């Protein structure tokens, strides 16, 4: 299309299109947005985890000079009669409605033109509660008669949750089942049976740009500016709440200062919308870092895994009992339960598998999606279990994995065959980078050294849709209209590369139009490693569609085949001046087969497989339990790396995040109260935590036949196997197994003492 052919886009480490704006601090975030006449909202939160609200006294706050209004659910009900929302269940009230279900739940909001005045006024609000017994532990919640919700209210958008409608007397929000073969018979035939339990703790996304949304409601039209990963979902759900058609709800999203799964579905959007309707003015709410811990978190997970083996070491039966602590509101928890449930037996070829996976309500802050969608919690269990079995059977850990590994074309537990998933090559790559075959220094004196490996995989949420528009202007320059949110992963750049490749344009010259639901077409959401694959395919189709239209135009103009007249000249020929556009559209939804309702089996349950493997070396001081991860290797199968540098950043960034979830991060609760909800007490990784040897690579020459140019998602793969690789290294160093995350000096010291027969007392 241009006279000089640009370098091919695919496989090029193009710097981010917005790089300059980011290093100069000029890049646009909702964080900074101010609208004329805008009010700031500050949230008054419950200080008890489970209670009936007897009264809320807002008089003193309302009387503070400068306060515009104090809003409770009573005010909201006047503008939104059914103020409940949620992606899976309509269980979450916009503000507490008669009851609070976790400590930190929003109860009232002060609106003021000055943020400081709103803050001061919140301190003047008081509420009286009739406290109810709380339920915090997922196991107890399974059978407790303390109920978080009186009745289950599934959203109509999830057909597989409809059987739960109106169910009463339970905290179980979803019971997912998979049945393959005959597990009981498998165990009966087995020569050896092993059973272990592993737990993962509650952690938080901590985006550096805290949650923020601005709503501007005027005369039946709403504009939302929000730091959201899912603008299309926000529009559809808010339109439902308001009873408006989609075209009256406009959702705009600039860049995000991090998301990691937290900024999905409805977060502050319903609240600011209601406030803007009540106040008849634009309203902004920005959370503080501390408040983020009450917005959404990652599920604690309790996983009991049982395996039956032949005496040769072949896995023949496995049962998984996985319980997810979802907190007070379901958010997308039921999907986590199901998606992570589906792969919870691990990347192994096992004839008889049964899986029960439960989403459970408790009186904790709500849990939702977080980088990996449950896969890291399940891999922590199945890969620790794998090492424990190999050890007990006296089989080499690598050989044991190879013997049982799921291979190309073989059906995974769900019956969906493994396809374009480089599990074994990922393992080989790890072994190579770990120098696994060389002798290993095991430390001396009180310093013990160990090393471990793990492999893992995940399925991708399906079926989901992405739509893209390519617009070529009269001068031949190009804009791409997509709903994918660039939250740091580099999607703008990667999508421009895909379009550039097809259109034969320099990717850096393409403008990517940020999500604005009045302008950009539908996309299910920037989540679960789906964008490169789904939106990438849609962009490719849109660009091909545009190329087809250019070819039509050439024919219409009677140009000879192969004339290669620049588009600008063709349009000038057609319209007699610099005018017109070429618009290409593309929409993509992968093949999918709904799982059987009783067995959970399906021949096509995931559009592609995310694959990750990890290796770790640790150094432990057995006198103190102090642990250092001295080497960490992460390998992922990303198919084709469209932008190798961006892929590398995703692999390493995801690994470091998971390193935090493995070693330090833990939301600690006492009687349902979070005790460490601030960066002062909740430690995320810093530069000092990066292992001295830190290697992150993708499997070379991998290719996914259904992905755009062979690519698939890369944002989560290195979260999966990391924790068990470290846990296995700890066990290798000490001969002692840690079952619960995080792995801290204290937990190591306790495990060492327990192994010596002198366990330390528990501190409550």
């Amino acid at each position: 299309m241009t006279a000089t052919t640009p370098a091919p886009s695919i496989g090029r480490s193009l710097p981010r299109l917005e790089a300059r704006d980011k290093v100069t601090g000029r890049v646009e975030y909702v964080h900074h947005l101010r609208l004329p006449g805008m009010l700031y909202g500050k949230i008054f939160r419950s200080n008890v985890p489970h209670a009936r609200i007897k009264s809320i006294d807002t008089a003193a706050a309302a009387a503070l000079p400068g306060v515009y209004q104090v809003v409770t659910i009573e005010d909201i009900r006047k503008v939104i009669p059914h103020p409940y929302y949620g992606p899976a269940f309509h269980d979450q009230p916009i503000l507490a409605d008669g009851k609070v279900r976790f400590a930190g739940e929003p109860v009232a909001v002060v609106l003021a033109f000055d943020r400081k005045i709103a803050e001061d006024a919140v301190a003047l609000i008081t509420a009286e509660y009739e406290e109810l017994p709380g339920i915090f532990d997922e196991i107890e919640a399974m059978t407790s008669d303390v109920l978080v919700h009186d009745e289950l209210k599934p959203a109509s958008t999830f057909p597989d949750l409809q059987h739960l409608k109106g169910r009463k007397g339970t905290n179980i929000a979803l019971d997912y089942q998979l049945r393959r073969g005959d597990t009981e018979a498998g165990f009966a035939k087995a020569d050896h049976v092993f059973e272990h339990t592993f737990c993962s703790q509650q952690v938080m996304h901590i985006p550096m740009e805290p949650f923020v949304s601005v709503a501007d409601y005027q005369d039946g039209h709403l504009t939302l500016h929000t730091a959201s990963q899912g603008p299309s979902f926000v529009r559809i759900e808010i339109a439902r709440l308001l009873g408006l058609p989609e075209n009256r709800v406009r959702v705009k999203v600039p860049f995000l200062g991090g998301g990691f799964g937290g900024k999905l579905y409805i977060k502050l959007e319903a609240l600011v919308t209601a406030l803007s309707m009540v106040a008849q003015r634009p309203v902004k709410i920005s959370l503080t870092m501390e408040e983020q811990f009450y917005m959404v978190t990652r599920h604690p997970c309790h996983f009991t895994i049982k395996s039956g083996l032949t005496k040769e070491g072949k896995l023949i039966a496995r049962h998984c009992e996985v319980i997810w602590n979802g907190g007070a509101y379901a958010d997308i928890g039921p999907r986590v339960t199901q998606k992570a449930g589906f792969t919870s037996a691990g990347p192994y070829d096992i004839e008889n598998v049964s899986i029960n996976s439960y989403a459970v309500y408790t009186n904790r802050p709500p849990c939702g999606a977080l980088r990996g969608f449950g896969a890291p919690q399940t891999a922590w269990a199945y890969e620790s279990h794998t090492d424990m079995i190999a050890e007990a059977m006296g089989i080499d850990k690598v050989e044991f994995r190879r013997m049982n590994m799921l291979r190309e074309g073989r059906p995974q537990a769900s019956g969906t065959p493994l396809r374009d998933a480089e599990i074994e090559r990922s393992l080989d790559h790890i072994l190579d980078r770990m120098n696994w075959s060389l002798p290993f220094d095991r430390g001396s004196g009180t310093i013990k050294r160990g090393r471990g490996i793990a492999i893992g995989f995940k399925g991708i949420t399906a079926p989901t849709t992405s739509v893209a528009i390519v617009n070529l202007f009269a001068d031949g320059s190009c804009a791409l209209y997509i709903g994918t949110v660039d939250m740091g992963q580099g999607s703008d750049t990667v999508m421009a590369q895909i379009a550039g490749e097809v259109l034969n344009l320099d990717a850096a010259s393409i403008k990517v139009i940020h999500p604005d639901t009045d302008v950009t077409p539908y996309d299910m959401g920037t989540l679960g490693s789906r964008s490169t694959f789904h939106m990438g395919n849609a962009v490719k189709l849109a660009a091909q569609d545009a190329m087809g239209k250019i070819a039509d135009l050439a024919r219409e103009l009677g140009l000879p085949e192969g004339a290669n007249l620049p588009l600008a000249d063709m349009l000038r020929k057609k319209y007699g001046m610099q005018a017109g556009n070429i618009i290409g559209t593309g929409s993509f939804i992968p093949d999918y087969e709904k799982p059987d309702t009783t067995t959970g089996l399906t021949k096509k349950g995931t559009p592609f497989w995310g694959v990750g493997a990890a290796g770790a070396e640790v150094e432990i001081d057995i006198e103190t339990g102090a642990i250092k991860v001295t080497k960490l290797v992460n390998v992922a199968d990303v198919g084709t790396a469209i932008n190798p540098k961006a892929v590398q950043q995703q692999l390493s960034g995801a690994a470091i995040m998971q390193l935090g979830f493995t070693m330090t991060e833990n939301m600690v609760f006492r009687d349902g109260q979070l005790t460490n909800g601030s960066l002062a007490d909740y430690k995320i990784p810093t530069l000092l935590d990066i292992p001295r040897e830190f290697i992150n690579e993708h499997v070379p020459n991998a290719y996914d036949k259904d992905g755009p140019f062979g690519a698939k998602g890369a944002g989560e793969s290195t979260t999966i196997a990391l924790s068990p690789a470290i846990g296995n290294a700890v066990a290798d160093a000490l001969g002692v197994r840690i079952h619960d995350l995080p792995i801290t000096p204290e937990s190591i010291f306790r495990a060492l003492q327990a192994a010596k027969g002198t366990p330390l007392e528990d501190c409550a």
Partner: protein
Amino acid sequence: MSTTRTIRFTLNGRAVAADVAAGETIVDMLTLRFDLKGARESCGQGLCGCCTVTVDGMAVSGCLSMAWFLDGTSVETIEGIGTGGALDPVQEAFIEAGAFQCGFCTPGFIMMVRQLLDAHPDPDDEEVRHYLTGNLCRCSAYPEILTAVKLAAAKRKKLAA
């Protein structure tokens, strides 16, 4: 209720004045009164470095320091570095090394790296890790940030030569 005071100071090389309230932080002043967005509040507790600016050449947490006390000082923010439309060598190095993802922490890191290189023109790995440990990046661009610091040090040396 709120007492205000007129302060005069230098902001990115220009003499400016502002009427600031007693409890007003530097970040609030910069965003609300000067429309500068590079220093931004994240943790609000002096723990993350997203709000870093320099006052008389010393890096401070703009979320904790009060604007009130800026009278007579010289303040520099990310918007003031680089010359005549050209990027500062540290900014260039951050782009070349790919030392950011979402970019929210980036101005704070860049301000801190400039101070690091002023004090230690040729820092080793250990010095860099310790010096920058008060800057948090949740996207965890840390390995690339280490590379960027080395690159920036080399660029500065070349410029000085």
